[in-house]
């Protein structure tokens, strides 16, 4: 069962390398990702599942996959995101479509692996595997400054993951049974001092990936320069890797060190939230605006996790999913606008609501989710997260809360500049938006509102992970 999440994308990706016809490649990719989606839905309906096979006996590394609630919700997000991305961008994918799609599916393979891996070495393996296709995708098909920007992104994250590798080896050495399994890691014999070292090594990797202020500068550039399909992958799913890492590895494995660093990280995150929000206010580039908004949201999730209260972590788990869906929607809309108008500058936009009412409605819908309006999915998560920050410290909670005002400012700025006003010449060029993208957006918007009104299934899904974290 779990193996299918690794194998379906992998096999399809290999297959795609040999299919030169762009159309059929696209169809195959869509069918494959939809297949994964079906599998993910089936998985979400089941209990916890394991898969275990020997891998490198010398190192006692195992091919161990484990799906609990946290993994499932992210697998679900990945499984939803990829077909959505491929369908929505299928009209404007580049020439060598098969290779493009193949790399995307390799990235999906890596992401699935990251979320399912129950073995640290395997986790690291997939962690890198998710990164490399993205590097190529962005560098080949990205914007003008793609090479330098993607390179910065790559080296930045690579440095982080190398630190994590050291951390993995470090903990591995202190396990009693010399194993990379997460269960053995959890039982590793680490003193408080060693925990801090291991914590720092892991945290750097996750912090860069998320990213947390002040390690975030790769992100807006990378989002801006990557092809939007890749930006969507990065923004909707890949940044979740860092948060997932904290929830799955950092928090359970190094509780002492975790607790010791709560204050630093929370304060840093809150600074980051406000900082990114402020910058977003002044952005004119729609992609950069979404990027900074994403930094702010991720910072909130991180702060909530580090507040180390059940309510906040629960909220963050939900928000992992919700933020993915929301930001995906925003990117798709932004992509359609960019593709059809050729500009990302919001100053040159305006009047979308008049020219393309449907698209404008969708944009507003996702924008509302972005500001966590009640009855959208983001509200549930953010409500719990702010709540836990408030319980952690009233003033920190209040300071973080300011971001909901700032979020309203920049998001509405965007809506105003893009959708409202007189129709600008750029917007006037727009043709009808293609049906598949529209359908994807509508489906995503339905998810936004359905999970916003009935979030309980998501809570039930993640309940077992939450319990694991807090039972100890």
């Amino acid at each position, binding site marked *: 069962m779990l193996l299918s999440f690794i194998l379906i994308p992998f096999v399809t990706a290999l297959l795609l390398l040999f299919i030169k016809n762009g159309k059929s490649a696209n169809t195959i990719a869509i069918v494959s990702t939809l297949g994964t989606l079906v599998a993910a839905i089936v998985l979400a309906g089941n209990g916890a599942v394991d898969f275990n096979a020997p891998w490198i006996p010398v190192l006692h590394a195992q091919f161990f996959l484990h799906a609990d609630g946290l993994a499932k919700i992210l697998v679900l997000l990945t499984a939803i995101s990829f077909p959505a991305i491929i369908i929505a961008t299928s009209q404007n994918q580049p020439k060598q479509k098969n290779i493009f799609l193949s790399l995307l599916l390799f990235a999906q393979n890596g992401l699935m692996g990251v979320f399912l891996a129950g073995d640290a070495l395997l986790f690291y393996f997939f962690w890198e595997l998710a990164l490399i296709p993205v590097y190529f995708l962005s560098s080949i098909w990205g914007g003008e400054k793609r090479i330098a920007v993607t390179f*910065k992104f790559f080296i930045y994250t690579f440095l982080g993951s190398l630190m994590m590798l050291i951390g993995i080896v470090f903990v591995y050495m202190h396990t009693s049974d010399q194993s990379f399994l997460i269960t053995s890691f959890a039982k590793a014999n680490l003193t408080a001092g060693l925990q801090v070292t291991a914590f720092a090594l892991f945290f750097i990797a996750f912090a860069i990936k998320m990213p947390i202020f002040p390690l975030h500068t790769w992100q807006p550039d990378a989002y801006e320069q990557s092809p939007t399909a890749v930006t969507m992958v990065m923004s909707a799913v890949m940044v979740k890797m860092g948060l997932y890492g904290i929830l799955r590895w950092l928090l359970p494995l190094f509780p002492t060190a975790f607790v010791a660093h709560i204050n630093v990280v929370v304060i840093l995150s809150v600074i980051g939230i406000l900082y990114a929000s402020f910058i977003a206010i*002044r952005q004119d580039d729609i992609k950069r605006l979404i990027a900074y908004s994403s930094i702010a949201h991720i910072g909130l999730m991180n702060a909530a996790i580090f507040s180390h209260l059940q309510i906040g972590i629960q909220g963050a788990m939900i928000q992992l999913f919700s933020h993915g869906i929301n930001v995906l929607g925003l990117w798709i809309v932004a992509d359609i606008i960019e593709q059809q108008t050729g500009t990302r500058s919001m100053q040159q936009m305006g009047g979308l609501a008049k020219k393309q*009412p449907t698209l404008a409605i969708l944009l507003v819908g996702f924008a509302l989710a972005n500001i966590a309006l009640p*009855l959208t999915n983001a509200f549930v998560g953010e409500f719990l997260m702010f709540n836990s920050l408030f319980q952690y410290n009233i003033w920190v*909670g209040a300071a973080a809360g300011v971001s*909901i005002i700032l979020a309203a400012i920049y998001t*509405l700025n965007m809506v105003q500049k893009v959708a*409202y006003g007189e129709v600008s010449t750029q917007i006037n060029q727009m043709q009808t938006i293609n049906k598949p993208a529209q359908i994807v957006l509508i489906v995503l918007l339905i998810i936004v509102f359905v999970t916003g009104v009935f979030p309980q299934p998501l809570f039930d899904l993640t309940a077992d992970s939450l*319990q694991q974290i807090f039972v100890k």
Partner: protein
Amino acid sequence: MKVLVGFIILWPLAGFLFNGLGRNYWSKKVIAYKATGYIIASFIASIFAFLHVQEHGATSVHYFDFINTATLKIPFDFKVDALSSLFLLVITGVGSLIHLYSTAYMKEESSAHYARYFAYLNLFIFFMLLLVLGDNYIIMFIGWEGVGLCSYLLIGYWFTNGDFNYAAKKAFIMNRIGDLGFLLAIFWMIFKLGSVSYSEVLTAESLAKLSSADITGITLLLFLGAMGKSAQIPLFTWLPDAMAGPTPVSALIHAATMVTAGIYMITRSNILFSHSEITQTVIAVIGISTALLAATIAIKQNDIKKVLAYSTVSQLGYMFLGLGVGAYSGAVFHVITHAFFKALLFLGAGSVIHAMHLEQDIRKMGGLKSKLPITHITFLIGCIAIAGVPPFSGFFSKDEILAAAFAKSPVYWVLGVIGAAMTAFYMFRLYATTFLGKFRGTPNQEAHLHESPMAMTFPLILLAVASAIAGAIGIPELMGGHHWLSHQLSTIVGEPTEIGLSHATEWLLMAVSVTIALIALLLAVIIYKKKTDEVPNSFIGKFFYNKWHIDELYNTVIVNPLNRIAGFLKNSIEKQVIDGAVNGTGKLVQYSARQLRLIQNGQVGYYILFMVLAIILLFLLWFNDTLLLRLFHNSIK
């Protein structure tokens, strides 16, 4: 009951979905019928709910669990009790009328936009119903933010106009500031009490769990929320700007319903508020200040809707004064009466604007009395009602608040009476300038002056009747009534307490305030019957005309600094410091690479020299502690 409440809630939602999704498919007629019909259906259901409450008392219904985790449980519950059923009636009742009015008022719009308008309006009703029906603060908050959203959408309804969009955004953001306060208050409750349900928070046991600091904190934060939504100082500037929306919207949202949500919320949580002396004082002071500030501005405004908007702000200030002095039922009473007469005034203004072809400047009107007879009569009734002339409804509600204020502190009362006088003055200034005297508009406008259609005048008439007689629900015992409303609300706010004034005093106060109001009223009519206000010359006049320069003040103190901080962060910190550090690391590597490769100078002699030096270095490192010390000693022993 479950079904009934479901009906109430879901009809507007159905209307929203129907109009929103089918906006390109239905004809205007269908849209209008459906939109209005759904609200009327909801109104009828509300009546049943109201009757149910009268018979069986409060009920709460459970639908599903919104959030149900180990630490927090938030059910999706609704509560129908005396307070909410009353609000239900006002919302759906006034809402139906305004829907009806809108069908005619918005006729000129294309059918897609027409549908959009009604979709928003229906959605607004839906959220407003959530707000008042919710059985916990989260549901209230959902409605709270939802109505803010609808307000935003409707203010910016004519989205091609940049100013309107700006006004919409401003409204939303200012509301958000308040919402943050509300949210923090909710967090505080969850933190201390672990629940947000009314049935668990608003009890004596939970009060015992809260320290007085907690209560003050929570109530102040809740009040912050109310300030945003109900446009109190300092978060009131959005409301006048919100007049950018279509006039029926102003009537419904920015006069009758949404802006009174703050009063609803505080009344709902009156147990908490009553336990915090500080908060009550704050509320009273802010309320009366807002009432006076807005009134002074209203005196000098020339835009018909702006005057009404400031008047609304001012009236809201009265309601908060009422809340602050503990006259909860008085505040609610004023909400209800205000809903009628302010809706009436706005709709009347809409009718005028309609007739004047979107002209809103009262200086260009005048003499409309004969041209728009129904509008004129109804508008006049509204003005009398708001001016507090007995026996119109405004008199009773305002008087109740003033009496309670006097009991608390005569200063409140004096200021309140001054405010009431100003209210009478500016309302009749508005009335006189608009309807009396001679027509001052263009001949073209004059030629096209006409009374509004039936769909518009019918609501006006109904509302005028309501404004005139609504005082009946709260005739004080002093006058032989038995104050139905305060008994009605007794389950929520407690039995009306004796305010401790003798009947003589009460009669005196009443007489004084009525007299002053009447004087102001007559003064205004006399002054403005003939002439209009041009741009004022006096300092105070200018100051009021320019709205105390508060917008400018906010711009310089808050908006601009924020923008500058953001720009500084974006251009300096982000680009130079943080990105600079990252790129600097890269540059450092490049620089060292350039320098390091110079050592590799291609000459064997140097290479070997480096090797020899390196060997020497190794020796020194190995023997770091002994060698140098003992280099020239003969023996180690």
